[in-house]
């Protein structure tokens, strides 16, 4: 009996470890493929170089970094007001029944394939931007709007959970001190839920940085440093996905190196999110 239990325990340990091993292998593989070109070109030249023409041996991914940053920032700007107000409403004002109905629907948004979001962007957003704001359509603006909607469920659902985790007694305490409901939310509940909400936002940023399909379809993909919201841009992920199937040699390595930059960015974001949510629990 004892030995059987040990066996099961060992089996589970192996399975659990395998997920870590898979991660390590992926990291190892990306670094092995991409690191040589970074070292050859020079980190500074690779990350800050503004020219990306693999045929001429120029590997600067700065335009893609800028594009990713702009689109991600735009997505957060679009998403934050919507998701925060949605979370505050559902957590603090709606009845449990309404919350129980709407929250799963919001979470369902996360399950829609990203190609569908991209398609909606092309069919609905492009003409709107073209007719009302000018430009061709594919742009930082369109990508920000679509990505903002895509990360809505992540931020909203984590924000609802952190608001709900604030002890009910804080609400009663604050109200009984003569605060209105809104003052209670602003001065007692939001500060207490702050770290949880921040970690939700960072996970949202992570999703936005990592999103590929929808972004390829709606951001225009030109390798330029964008000057305005209506300029097209290319993200790091799009760069890899668009060129990988015909890239060889240095070009292929440079795409892997792009992956390294992405990998490190996402890792850092996730670590920040983890630290924040743990700090929230301790309090």
């Amino acid at each position, binding site marked *: 009996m004892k030995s059987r239990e040990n066996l099961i325990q060992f089996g589970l340990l192996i399975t659990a470890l395998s997920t870590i091993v898979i991660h390590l292998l992926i990291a190892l593989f990306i670094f092995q493929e991409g690191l040589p070109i970074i070292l050859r070109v020079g980190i500074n030249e690779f990350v800050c170089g503004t020219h990306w023409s693999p045929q001429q041996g120029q590997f600067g991914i700065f335009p893609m970094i800028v594009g990713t940053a702009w689109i991600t920032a735009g997505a957060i700007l679009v998403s934050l007001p919507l998701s925060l107000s949605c979370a505050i409403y559902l957590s603090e004002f709606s*009845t449990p029944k309404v919350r129980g109905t709407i929250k799963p629907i919001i979470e369902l948004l996360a399950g829609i394939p990203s190609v569908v979001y991209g398609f909606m962007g092309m069919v609905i957003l492009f003409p709107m931007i073209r007719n009302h704001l000018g430009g061709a359509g594919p742009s930082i603006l369109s990508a920000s709007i679509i990505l903002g909607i895509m990360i809505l469920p992540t931020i909203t659902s984590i924000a609802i959970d952190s608001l709900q985790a604030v*002890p009910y*007694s*804080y*609400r*009663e*305490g*604050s*109200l*009984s*001190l*003569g*605060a*209105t409901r809104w*003052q209670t939310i602003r*001065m*007692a509940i939001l*500060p*207490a839920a702050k770290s949880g909400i921040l970690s939700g936002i960072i996970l949202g940023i992570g999703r936005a940085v990592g999103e590929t399909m929808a972004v390829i379809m709606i951001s225009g993909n030109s390798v330029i440093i964008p000057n305005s919201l209506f300029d097209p841009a290319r993200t790091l992920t799009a760069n890899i996905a668009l060129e990988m199937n015909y890239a060889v040699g240095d070009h292929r390595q440079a795409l892997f190196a792009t992956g390294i930059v992405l990998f490190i960015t996402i890792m850092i974001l996730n670590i920040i999110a983890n630290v924040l949510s743990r700090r929230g629990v301790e*309090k």
Partner: protein
Amino acid sequence: MEDKIVVKNLNLYFDTLAVLRSINLNIKANEILSIIGPANSGKTSFLRTLNRLNDLIPTARITGEVLLDGLDIYKKDLSLPWLRRKVGMVFALPVPLPRSIFENIVYGPRLNGVTNKLRLEELTEKTLKAAFLWDEVKDRLHTSGTKLSGGQQQRLCIARTLALEPEVILLDEPCSGLDPLSTSKIEEALYELKKQYTIVLVTNNTKQAARVGDNVAFFLMGDLIEYGSTEQIFTVPSDKRTEDYITGRFG
């Protein structure tokens, strides 16, 4: 002595469940009224009708009248923040907000528009002294209120209620989680406070009611069974059930 709060024919329902049934009770100014009774008898619910905290429960429904200085507090356009500043409340579990001791005290006054720093500091000292906490925390007013011991947290909660400069203070089993020493400190504070405030104290501890109360109301299953002076209730209760409860035969 004049009546501070008059409760007339008060009924409280959660959904269809009657939690309080035709309560009639006058609470006199500058006195401590202790409310005793076994669990589930509606003591806390009664207390929470006096500052309308039951309004938070969507299924709660109230009939009857509660008059504060003659004013119906269930009047339609009554401002709840105003009412809750006049009728302060201290909960069974002390819950300081996750802020410093100072910030906990000035939370209410700030919401009420007091911004003068000197005034806020004065208020902090005055209320902490009244709650018998000043000497223990005066050197660390800017450390977190949640780091204090349970008894200190409860006295902090009393102090922050006093900072509202209320007229009535509701206490919901304020000593239920506290050791005897902290309990006696809080009772001492209550004794001083009744000179300025009207106090309603819900307690599970009949001895505490006997020690600090001027009058006692005995609740059972949502009914007010008996009301009288502390002396009368604890020596010659007129109702058999009251006698059974205070002698510890049930509850």
